[in-house]
């Protein structure tokens, strides 16, 4: 702890010295936002701290984002900007499965744990032996029909380790617990109802002996929830719904909304016409964070169902909201609806990174959240107060967030409505950022954010709710945004709400970020490049063409030999690799698709794959 503070102080001193000496660290990269002050000197921000300090070994990776704060920061520092050009592939492992390899492996006790896309096989690899032979392989029973209920590819975002057990979700709606040493299933609990279009893709976290899980299905007319399962017995302990009565949503006397629009009885009912809250979506399919001091679990909810807004006039709480629940009881302590009455499929499920930041002369406990709607939020994580909200991508649907109410000011011409095709809405429904998680470095004080540069037309059409089929009611073709690049990997200052540097990419940056103490940041691209860049300047240090596009998230661990390793999946899929890619598949003789119009070049650079790549010096 002491040495980390010292490093930050030194960093701050160095930055001041640089500024005084005219050492302005600007980047040569093109800034596509068109803002006047395009490049900002990258400085260390004194007083930044990851909000939930790691209690696990620096050389391991025990939970999806490395820590409860979702920092995706590794304390390992052997790899630096000076030696990163020497990185090389160390070993690989074929997962045996195709489709989107979202998520990340875990490393605990010199063992690497992987979970594949459906059918959600899990592996334990022995890192202590040359060739990384299997310790075990687990092949769950997993209903085939689930593949037809998952909107956006049969992905899995990873497992969590706790107490000698591996926990993860199956696409068909079960959560499983596996003995980390033997690979035997300890329990299997049905949490989601496939018959109603619910599947599970999210990565759990384990908090105080409870496995926290949520469901997918915002496009299937489901009703979202977050639940806790006893890690030993597999019994469900609590479930808080994201729409419905206060009793179902678990709004009680300890609930407090910072904003008046979030205060009232049964808002999860009254902000919907009639019974539409029952198919209201608000699914918790994204990332979870946890603050042990406040004892709060943070997550976001999906879009409301259906996309056809005419069917559900009203704020539609608590869809598109950041939720803070008591980890013991599931009580909702606060909620902030990021996009009330969403008309663009701007889910709010993206990660909430818990960071203490200097703001207004004091240190605030915040969460930083890069939303689908294109705003980068810095929010007080104790109360839900919005401190900063600035666009991190090009956008035109809103002129800004009113900090008095927390609500976005919507541009009337970009409101979607039945009867007309609304053109050129930015960002597209895929958002300024989607499931691909950002990372934070306390060394630089910066957030590293993989973003999309996509816009869309949006046509609302009538829709019927038929259980087990999609409940959407819209056509929304997408295209690349202004500038013609598909995405950009950016560094962001969450105290000022400004982009510090950016690396444009031809395709949306659909893989997650990793920040390391050595000052190197890693991310992968859809066209199959895995890259190392300088955390301060964004300068590209090294890259390697992996077998298939990257939609997963890199981790770093210490091998048994004491060396630092970087591991990442390659295997394109998810929305980019299935829904809009056109034909990047090869293994299905009965499914040959024409080139997609959104990313017509994608199939030239990648096809489906399924491989773990591990790199070292």
């Amino acid at each position, binding site marked *: 702890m002491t040495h980390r503070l010292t490093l930050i102080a030194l960093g701050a001193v160095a930055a001041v010295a640089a500024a005084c000496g005219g050492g302005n660290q600007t980047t040569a990269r093109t800034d596509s936002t068109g803002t006047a002050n395009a490049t900002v000197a990258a400085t260390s921000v004194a007083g930044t701290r990851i909000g939930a300090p790691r209690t696990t070994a620096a050389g391991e990776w025990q939970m999806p984002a490395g820590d409860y704060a979702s920092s995706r920061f590794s304390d390992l520092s052997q790899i630096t900007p000076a030696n990163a050009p020497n990185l090389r592939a160390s070993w690989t492992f074929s997962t045996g499965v195709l489709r989107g390899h979202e998520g990340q492996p875990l490393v605990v006790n010199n063992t690497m744990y992987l979970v594949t896309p459906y059918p959600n096989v899990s592996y334990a690899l022995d890192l202590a032996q040359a060739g990384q032979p299997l310790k075990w392989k687990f092949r769950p029973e997993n209903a085939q029909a689930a593949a*037809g*209920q998952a909107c956006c590819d049969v992905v899995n975002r990873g497992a969590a380790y706790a107490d000698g057990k591996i926990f993860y979700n199956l696409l068909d709606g079960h959560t499983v617990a596996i003995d980390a040493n033997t690979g035997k299933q300890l329990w299997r609990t049905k949490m989601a109802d496939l018959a109603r279009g619910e599947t599970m893709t999210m990565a759990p976290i384990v908090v105080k002996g409870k496995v926290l899980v949520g469901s997918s299905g915002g496009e299937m007319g489901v009703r979202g929830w977050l639940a806790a399962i006893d890690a030993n017995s597999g019994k469900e302990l609590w479930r808080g719904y994201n729409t419905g009565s206060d009793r179902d949503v678990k709004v009680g006397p300890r609930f407090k909304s910072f904003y008046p629009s979030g205060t009232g009885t049964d808002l999860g009912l009254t902000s919907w016409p009639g019974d539409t809250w029952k198919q209201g979506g608000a699914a918790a399919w994204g990332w979870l964070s946890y603050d042990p001091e406040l004892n709060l679990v943070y997550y976001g909810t999906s879009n409301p169902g259906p996309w056809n807004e005419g069917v559900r006039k009203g704020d539609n709480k608590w869809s598109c909201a950041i939720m803070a629940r008591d980890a013991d009881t599931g009580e909702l302590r606060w909620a902030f609806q990021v996009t009330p009455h969403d008309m663009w499929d701007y889910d709010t499920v993206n990660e909430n990174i818990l960071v203490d930041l200097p703001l207004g002369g004091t240190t605030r406990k915040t969460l930083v959240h890069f939303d689908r709607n294109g705003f980068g939020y810095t929010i007080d994580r104790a109360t839900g107060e919005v401190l900063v909200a600035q666009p991190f991508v090009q956008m035109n649907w809103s002129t800004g967030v009113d900090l008095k109410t927390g609500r976005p000011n919507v541009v009337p011409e970009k409101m979607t409505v039945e009867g007309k095709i609304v053109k050129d809405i930015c960002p597209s429904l895929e958002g300024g950022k989607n499931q691909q998680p950002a990372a934070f470095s306390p060394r630089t004080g910066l957030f590293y954010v993989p973003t999309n540069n996509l816009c869309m037309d949006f046509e609302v059409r009538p829709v019927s709710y038929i259980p087990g*089929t999609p409940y959407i009611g819209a056509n929304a073709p997408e295209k690349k945004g202004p500038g013609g690049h598909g995405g950009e990997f950016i560094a962001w200052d969450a105290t000022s709400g400004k982009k510090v540097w950016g690396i444009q990419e031809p395709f949306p940056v659909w893989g997650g970020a990793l920040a390391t103490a050595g000052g190197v940041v890693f991310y992968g691209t859809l066209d199959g490049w895995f890259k190392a860049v300088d955390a301060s300047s964004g300068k590209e240090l090294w890259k390697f063409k992996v077998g298939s596009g990257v939609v997963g998230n890199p981790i770093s661990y210490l091998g048994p030999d004491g060396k630092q390793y970087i591991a990442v999946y390659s295997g394109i899929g998810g929305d980019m690799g299935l829904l809009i890619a056109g034909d990047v598949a090869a293994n299905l003789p009965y*499914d*040959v*698709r*024409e080139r997609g119009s959104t990313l017509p*070049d994608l199939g030239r650079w990648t096809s489906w794959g399924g491989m773990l790549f591990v790199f070292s010096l």
Partner: protein
Amino acid sequence: MRATVIVLGTTFILAAATAPRVVRQAPAPNAGAKDTIRFVAHPDNIPPGFPSNDHPLALKNPYEGNAQALKTGSQLYVAYNCIDCHGADGSGAMGPSLADSRWHFGGTPAEVFESIYEGRPDGMPTWGGRITNDQIWMLVTYVRSLSAGKDVATENFAGATVERTGH
């Protein structure tokens, strides 16, 4: 079993070209299951009317070639949410492409009817009994029209000039 019949049938025809003498196989004294299958599969021993793949299901589409049915089918395709799984114009999304002349479970009218009526593994819902057979046939008419004239076999990127940034 059916596939085995075809292979052996072909073998027999080839054999007949060089050895016109008809071969009759008597069962071996201790015929196990394997011998039994070989015995039954011999073309000489196939009972009349035994189905083969040369004659698939005889269900006929009453709306074959019917433009109005095709149009209604296109509307049902949207109304029943087929569009959201299989994409506009059958381009493929959550579910496979219907516009590529390639069929997982067969592309004859009867086979497409069966896929919609029964549902299929991997997530195609069961529509039989929930919507009328008439509507299913109209969907069959529409779905089978989506591949018309398309050759998806080759993807050629030559001459594709798409701007690249970065590398």
